[in-house]
Every structure is written in structure tokens, then in C-alpha cells.
């Protein structure tokens, strides 16, 4: 990396089912204004802007045209990153690298989605028209197929998956920005929710949300103003072949996430991720998937994720809290979702996570997950690299 850079401010809307009171630009402006306020900077202090949004879901082309102005982009370099679920983490990586290159001292990243405006399922079915599109099962059926293999191989139980959903909704009850929260949720309630695609039930799945999230990234002299910058240590991105059947047991092997995590651990010098990482914000659109990520990220041995969630180690107060914010299961405005993961990890390092603040956070891990198996991994820390 050319020079050290850090996340110095974050801002989010309250994520919810529908925001009929604002258009996309107004939603973006809300998050950007909050992030500038958090970083104690003004519009004029931002050198460049990265936008992340999946415009097909809203049926609106060129979101950078309509929303760049509301992100404070006039007269500045503005670019858009759209890579499915990884859009937000990819956009954050792009912004961090722009600042680290020395090209800009401050970069603002803002991601958003307004699922209430469109038809997400249709958008996701519009894949390869020659082969893929006729099986318009969308995300749920395809997730369930991969999960069925994972369950068959490792004997993960519905109760263990439900513990992930319970942890998420209880954590979300502490987060003023979360969409789905339920302090009183139980394993029984998850198991009693409607079956969508076996073994995935309604409460195992993420919602579709309206929301936006922004980050302020600073390098050079700018970053010295801040007492607790969330330093960017490393990132890695992996693409993979497009069709769900291209790799057998994709969720079990998860070669993209595994390989990206190994690269990041090597760059930062992490030997034992479970012991050395203090908090993780993972992209878990389904409860079962969080368990698979524990294994791919080396938090536990293959096949031991069910036991790890049962141990309580990934709850707030445990040895490695995972998604203290409530995660994707509790807020999912897709273009913003990856940005939210990065923002929540940064908030933990800033000491600004409020009721879900994890004590003594020095190192934070972030993942993004998109399309069938793309992966982003980022590592943030309190220590300047």
C-alpha cells in the first residue's frame, strides 16, 4: 500500500421496508450528511466519490447521474461500482485504494438501495438468458441447494442455524439503524416460521430493505485529526465461475472466501483468526451461510461451525463477536449492505457502536458476498500499518 489510510466517519439511514418520504437521492443525501457530520467535515473537504447501487432492482439506469449530486459529487471525480452483493465492499475497497494511492486525501463512499421501488426477484432472474434464466428460482432456491449439500455433509441442524438468526435479531434490537429486530426472538419462533425452500425458513433469510450508508476515508494530513481512525490494513477480492453448478459443494469449499481470507491474513500476519480478530462483520444473507463462513474464514475447523454457534463465542461478549450490528439478516439494502459491514466494523474501532459496542476492539474483519460466490475480505485495525 502506498500510504496508510483510515475510515474516519460513517453515516447510515435507518434501514426499513419502505421509505416513501424520500427519493433515492434524498436517501443518499441523508447517509452522506450523517457521515460528514460524524467525520466533522464539510462537502468541500471531500475530494472524490464512489457510489454503489444495483440499479436494475429499481429499474433506473445511471444512478450516478441521478444521485451523484446528492452525494456531494459536483465538480469531483465520481464513479459507480456494482458487483451484486459485494457492491458495497468492492466500493469501499475502491475508495480505500484511491486514497491509499495518494491521488486523493479524502474519498466518500456511499451505497444505497430502495428495494421497495422495484422487483428484486425479477432483477436477480435476469441472468444468462440462454441458460440460467428459465429457472427463475431467485436467490432463495439457489441458496437452499448449496445449503442442502452443506447440511448433508456436516450435519448442521435447523436449531444451530436458528441460533444464528436469534443472535442477529437480538443484536439488531440494540442497533437503531437495523430493519428487522426482535429482542424476544427464540429458536422455537425461528423453527415455527414458514418454510421457504428446505431447510431455509422465513426467519433464516435476510429482508429486503430501503437504506443507505456512507463512509469517509482519509489519508495524509487529514487522518491526523482523528483520535481513533479505523486503519485499512488489507483487502482481497475473488471472482468465480458464473453458474451455480460450476463447482460442486460450492458453499462447503467456498474457494473464493477461503482464498481471499488467507491472502488478507498473510498480509496482516494473522496466524489464528479466531483468537486474533476482535470482531467480524460478515455478509450472511442466510443463517446457514454464517456457519459456512466460520469454517471458510478459519474461525473453527471444517464441520465445527454448529458447535461454535452453540458455544456462544460469536455473541456480543463472546471471544469473537460476529455481526454485533445484527448483520445482513437484519438489514439488506443490497447496494449499501457491504458498505454497512465496513461501517459497522469501523464504528467498533471508533468506539461508536453504542449499545452493541464490543469491548477492546483492536482488529476487525469484514466480508462481502455476491452473486453465486464472489468474495471480498477487508481487515481494519486500531494500529496504524
Amino acid at each position, binding site marked *: 500500500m502506498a500510504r496508510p489510510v483510515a475510515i474516519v466517519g460513517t453515516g447510515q439511514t435507518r434501514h426499513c421496508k419502505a421509505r*416513501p418520504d*424520500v427519493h433515492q437521492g434524498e436517501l443518499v443525501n441523508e447517509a452522506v450528511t450523517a457521515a460528514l457530520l460524524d467525520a466533522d467535515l*464539510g462537502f468541500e473537504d471531500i475530494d472524490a466519490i464512489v457510489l454503489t447501487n444495483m440499479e436494475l432492482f429499481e429499474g433506473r439506469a445511471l444512478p450516478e447521474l441521478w444521485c451523484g449530486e446528492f452525494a456531494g459529487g459536483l465538480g469531483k471525480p465520481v464513479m459507480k461500482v456494482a458487483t451484486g452483493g459485494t457492491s458495497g465492499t468492492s466500493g469501499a475497497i475502491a475508495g480505500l485504494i484511491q486514497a491509499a494511492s495518494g491521488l486523493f486525501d479524502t474519498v466518500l463512499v456511499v451505497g444505497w438501495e430502495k428495494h421497495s421501488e422495484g422487483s428484486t426477484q425479477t432483477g436477480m432472474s435476469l441472468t444468462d438468458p*440462454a441458460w440460467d434464466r428459465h429457472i*427463475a428460482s*431467485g436467490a432463495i432456491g439457489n441458496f437452499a441447494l448449496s445449503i442442502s449439500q452443506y447440511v448433508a455433509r456436516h450435519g448442521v441442524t435447523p436449531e444451530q442455524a436458528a441460533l444464528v438468526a436469534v443472535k442477529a435479531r437480538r443484536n439488531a434490537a440494540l442497533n437503531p439503524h437495523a430493519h428487522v429486530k426482535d429482542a424476544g426472538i427464540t429458536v422455537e419462533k425461528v423453527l415455527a416460521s414458514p418454510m421457504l425452500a*428446505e431447510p431455509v425458513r422465513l426467519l433464516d433469510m435476510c429482508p429486503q430493505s430501503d437504506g443507505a450508508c456512507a463512509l469517509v476515508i482519509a489519508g495524509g494530513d487529514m487522518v491526523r*485529526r482523528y483520535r481513533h481512525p479505523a486503519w485499512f490494513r488489507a483487502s482481497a477480492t475473488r471472482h468465480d465461475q458464473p453458474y451455480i*453448478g460450476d463447482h460442486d*459443494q460450492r458453499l462447503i469449499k467456498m474457494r473464493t472466501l477461503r482464498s481471499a481470507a488467507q491472502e488478507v491474513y498473510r498480509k496482516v500476519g494473522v496466524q489464528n483468526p479466531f483468537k486474533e480478530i476482535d470482531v467480524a462483520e460478515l455478509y450472511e444473507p442466510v443463517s446457514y451461510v454464517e456457519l459456512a463462513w466460520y469454517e471458510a474464514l478459519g474461525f473453527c475447523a471444517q464441520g465445527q461451525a454448529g458447535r461454535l454457534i452453540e458455544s456462544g463465542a460469536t455473541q456480543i461478549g463472546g471471544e469473537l463477536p460476529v455481526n454485533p450490528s445484527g448483520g445482513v439478516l437484519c438489514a439488506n439494502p443490497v447496494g449499501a449492505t457491504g458498505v454497512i459491514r465496513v461501517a459497522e466494523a469501523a464504528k467498533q474501532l471508533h468506539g461508536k457502536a453504542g449499545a452493541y459496542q464490543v469491548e477492546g476492539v483492536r482488529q476487525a474483519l469484514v466480508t462481502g458476498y455476491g452473486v453465486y460466490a464472489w468474495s471480498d475480505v477487508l481487515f481494519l485495525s486500531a494500529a496504524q500499518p
Partner: protein
Amino acid sequence: MSAPAGPPQGGAANDMERAQLGNRHHPLPREGEWRDGGSVNPDDYLHSEITLDMSWDIDVGGVMSEFFRRLKAERRLYGMRCSRCARTYLPPRPVCGDCWQEMEEWVALGRQGTLVAKTVCHYKILDSATGEPRRTPFVLGLIQLDGADTSLNHFVAAPDPGQVGIGDRVEIVFRDALQGNVGDIVHFQWLGGKAGAHG
């Protein structure tokens, strides 16, 4: 840089800062004052409903054109084998992504295959062939056809969805009048559990 020399890390802004950062039409919300779908009346705001009737004409490419020509002529699926890693891909493609190797060898695939993953779906979707809602529950599977190293996701027809399991054998069902497109595959017929496999 002309940043105000405020307290490091921002922190709770006072009302004056909020007034400067927000505006009359779009005041910055305070926590507890969020203007979200739960606290606003949707009828107070205008919507603009758009229905698009658009069409696309997408080229499927040289390899898939040949794949569909063979499907229509022979009622059979073909994969493509990488000469370097020996993986046989379905759907075929001109280049093996892992090896970055151009592929040329067409491999005839079997009509039967093995379920490597399955799920019973209880949510409503439209049947792309009929435009009507598909009856629930329906079975979705990942099928590895004999001779292929990759699998395809498709519907599995079985008398009792609960009986279908990973490892079971299935057989491809084509529509009667082939058109040379992916819609020629209607579904996969379940051939019974592992014990009663037809081989």
C-alpha cells in the same frame, strides 16, 4: 482543506450544526425522529408507477448456438471438455476459466444423472413455460449428468417431494417439439431412491 477545527471524531452535533447540514426540505433526522416507513404516512407522498414492456435480442454466442443445434438435432446435451484439466463443462463455453485454455472437444452427455443437491420449495413462482403459478411444493435440484463434471439447477418431478434425496438418480425430460433453446428441457424425472437406482 478548509475543514472546521471541531472536536476529533465528530461526536454529537449541536442543533446549529444540524441546521447547517440539513435543509428545510430535508432536515437531518435525530435518533428517535427517523422519517421511515413506520412513522410517515405513505399517502402524504407521491409515487410514480412505471410499467416497462421492453425487449432484448441477445446473442447466445458460437458455442451455445452449436449446443442448441445439437440438442435439436440429436435430443441430447453436449458438454465441452478442457484438454488441460479434463473437466467437462455443462453448459459448454469456449474457455476453461480455471486453466484459461481454449476448449474444442464436444462430449455427449448421458440422459440420466445424479442429484448432488436438492431443496423442496414452498414459495410461489411462475412457470416460465406456461406463465401460470407453479404448484407448491416443488423440488429444485442440482443435477450432475453422466459424463459432466459440473451440474445444472432444474426442477425435479417426483410423486412425493419428501422422498427425493441427494444421490438419487434422475432422467432428463425434453419437450416433444424441440425448438433448440433451453426451454426444451422441461424437468428431470426422479427415478427412485439410491437403493432402486436405474444405473
